[in-house]
């Protein structure tokens, strides 16, 4: 086949490529030096590239830089970090939106394991604490349980959470009481099941949350809403739980 040539998509010439500076938090738990920051400079970046693209290029230059990443499209929740003072996902943060030097720090208020990698154990423990699984005692039908579209709509804005941790790590109440306040992410999960018409453990769930710390440390500061990369609203979800508690108690 003389006319046969491999074909590949070539990116159309985009906005002008340029140089950017990054200031990245470094911590090597095995080394003697304490935490610090390291400067990196990258060339040929375009404003429509994502921060994760830049981090992957830094990683090619410096294999010792540690960060988590996987899907690259904002659905797995691996690459949450503090970007110029604000929590977000590197893979859906456009370079063009960032002022320089781009300051990259681990999620605040959570123990650091290494560089941009934090220890999420407490966060996951709190997720498990709200018993995030559907609880139904009635015998299961041989087909699906019915749920009306308007009942299903009550889960919109709740079920989409990707457990990235941006919200809890942005919450001053969580910073103060990470062991006792469940934090916005776990409470959003609690709301996801409390609001589900198929769940039969609503009262038990409300009782478990009726505690001075677990839920009521939320002071509606709304940092969680501000940073959620999926556009979810944990503050409103917590408010919904409170209202139900109130209704139950009267």
């Amino acid at each position, binding site marked *: 086949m003389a006319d046969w040539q491999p074909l590949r998509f070539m990116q*159309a010439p985009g906005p002008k490529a340029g140089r950017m500076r990054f200031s990245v938090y470094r911590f090597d738990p095995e080394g003697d030096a304490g935490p610090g920051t390291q400067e990196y400079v990258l060339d040929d970046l375009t404003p429509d590239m994502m921060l994760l693209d830049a981090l992957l290029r830094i990683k090619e230059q410096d294999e010792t830089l540690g*960060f988590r990443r996987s*899907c690259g499209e904002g659905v797995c929740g691996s690459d949450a970090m503090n970007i110029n003072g604000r929590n977000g996902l590197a893979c859906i943060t456009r370079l063009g939106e960032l002022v320089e030097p781009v300051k990259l720090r681990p999620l605040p208020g959570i123990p650091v394991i290494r560089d941009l990698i934090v220890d999420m154990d407490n966060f996951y423990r709190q997720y498990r604490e709200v018993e995030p699984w559907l609880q139904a005692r009635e015998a299961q039908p041989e087909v699906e349980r019915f749920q009306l579209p308007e009942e299903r709509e009550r889960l919109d804005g709740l079920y989409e959470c990707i457990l990235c941790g941006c919200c809890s790590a942005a919450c001053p109440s969580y910073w103060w009481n990470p062991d006792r306040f469940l934090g916005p992410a776990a409470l959003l999960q609690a709301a996801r099941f409390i609001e589900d018409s198929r769940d039969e453990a609503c009262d038990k769930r409300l009782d478990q949350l009726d505690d001075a710390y677990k839920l009521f440390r939320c002071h509606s500061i709304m940092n969680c809403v501000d940073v959620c990369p999926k556009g979810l609203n944990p503050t409103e979800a917590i408010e919904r739980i409170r209202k139900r508690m109130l209704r139950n108690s009267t």
Partner: protein
Amino acid sequence: MRPERRRFDALVIGAGGGGLRAALQLANAEATVAVVSKVFPTRSHTVAAQGGVNASLANVLPDNWHWHMFDTIKGSDYLGDQDAIEYMCRAAPKAVYELEHFGVPFSRLENGRIYQRAFGGQSQHFGGEQAARTCAAADRTGHAILHSLYQQNIRARTHFFDEHFALDLLRDESGRVLGALVFDIATGESVVIEAKVTLLATGGAAQVYRTNTNALINTGDGMAMALRAGVPLQDMEFVQFHPTGIAGKGMLITEGVRGEGGYLVNGEGERFMERYAPNARDLASRDVVSRAIVTEIREGRGCGPRRDHVLLKLDHLGEALINRRLPAIRETARTFVNADPVRDPIPVFPTAHYTMGGIPTNRHGQVVAPTADAPEEPVEGLYAVGECACVSVHGANRLGGNSLLDIVVFGRAAANHMIDYLAEHRYHRPLPEAAVEGPRARLDRWDEARGEASVPELRRELQRTMEEYAGVFREQESLDEGVARVRAIREQLELAAIGDHSRVFNTARVEALELVNLADVALAVVTSAAARRESRGAHSRVDHPDRDDARWLKHSLFSLAEGMDYKPVRIKPLTVDSFPPKERTY
């Protein structure tokens, strides 16, 4: 230092939908289960599946499992095994109802039942009118399923080894699989996990291509572990290129967009799919649509200043429908191409997406390999499910919506068979010390500096090589060149070094181990593709443009030691008549 030893009844490697569905079944049967995952479970790539899961619930249009079976066999270009396909399509409704009972927040119809949408390659009455068989949770079905399965596993108290990387299977002298050597990424410490039975559920390997829809973690680890254990990989030449990845970037745009009424246009504004698939048009099988797009572009009818992509139009669907049924697509398009699909079309290009081939299994999930006596002898103690496996329900081309189905149906089936296996094998077999040495050396090797070759450079070269020499359209000369290049990359990898020898969260070492796996899988893909001299499903040879059932209606088997071998397709279903191969048009 000797690694820590842990003992479980069952070991599941991989925490995507297949692994978690199996783990749940095992845990519910009171087996002790360890799930090893190199990422926290909800970050597994099942989370990114969008459009939905197929089952003939007939909630929207008339349907039954037999039509689903026909569509799947035709979609597979007759390379799928008809016993496994019958099993899967019959089990589908029950599998989906189970997911609903687990808590999956499916979208709903006015009558409260699960919403179903049209998807590619679906028909009523064995090739008639379009069917609506894909059960969806908006366009986040994979997320909804993965999170629900993880939640159920928390309830069932499954034991998770999060952020642990599996190095290799452990086998005794007879070849029986006795567990795996893994290491804790956070500490660098190795752990021997002994198990009476082991399941590989490590997902796909589209990271062998430069532009792909896959997560960075999709590096074919389980496939490569099987190869190293002497198990061949089946039908690896069949790699699905999804018609609608975002051009140049690769993010997936679900087929559900076309299922909801979106369509493709070329640079002349023409709905070109009408010429390639007069009946199904934009909902033809993925291989057909991907070839059509590449052909349009080759013939100069692409879009944009370089005429190098086509456009996916959905603005006519209206903002309300897009927000209700395709919200994540709207988000993705806004983020990655700065286009709002409510007004603007999305530039798309066929993008490496799914590995139809994999570790050969039977419909119970048992890994099977040829022996001197039989083409399909079970490997004792080893199972595989999902994208890393090849059962084979997808044959030469997978239908959209059948991969989420594959993982839940066969995750469950494999676990049930494993439970029976555990009843017959009540005790752990002794693990010879020597079994751990090889895998241990594969890890320690990266502590030595052997040479100059760098892992990131070799990875880039491998991905470019595969894209250039084993893409949508293939040809002998370039495939042969591809084989030579991949072999050369594997040799250089032997001498590669990494610039980080720390213990704690050493991601450079993880990436090096992943590249070794990717390179083995790439060799399987390109070697199998060079050997198959016909066009079938996703494998399109410009020098052999027709399907050749007389010579090639057979499964490929690639092994590291012996190269290519073949075995027959299982044409006979379980209870119904076989669907003999016929011409495939849409």
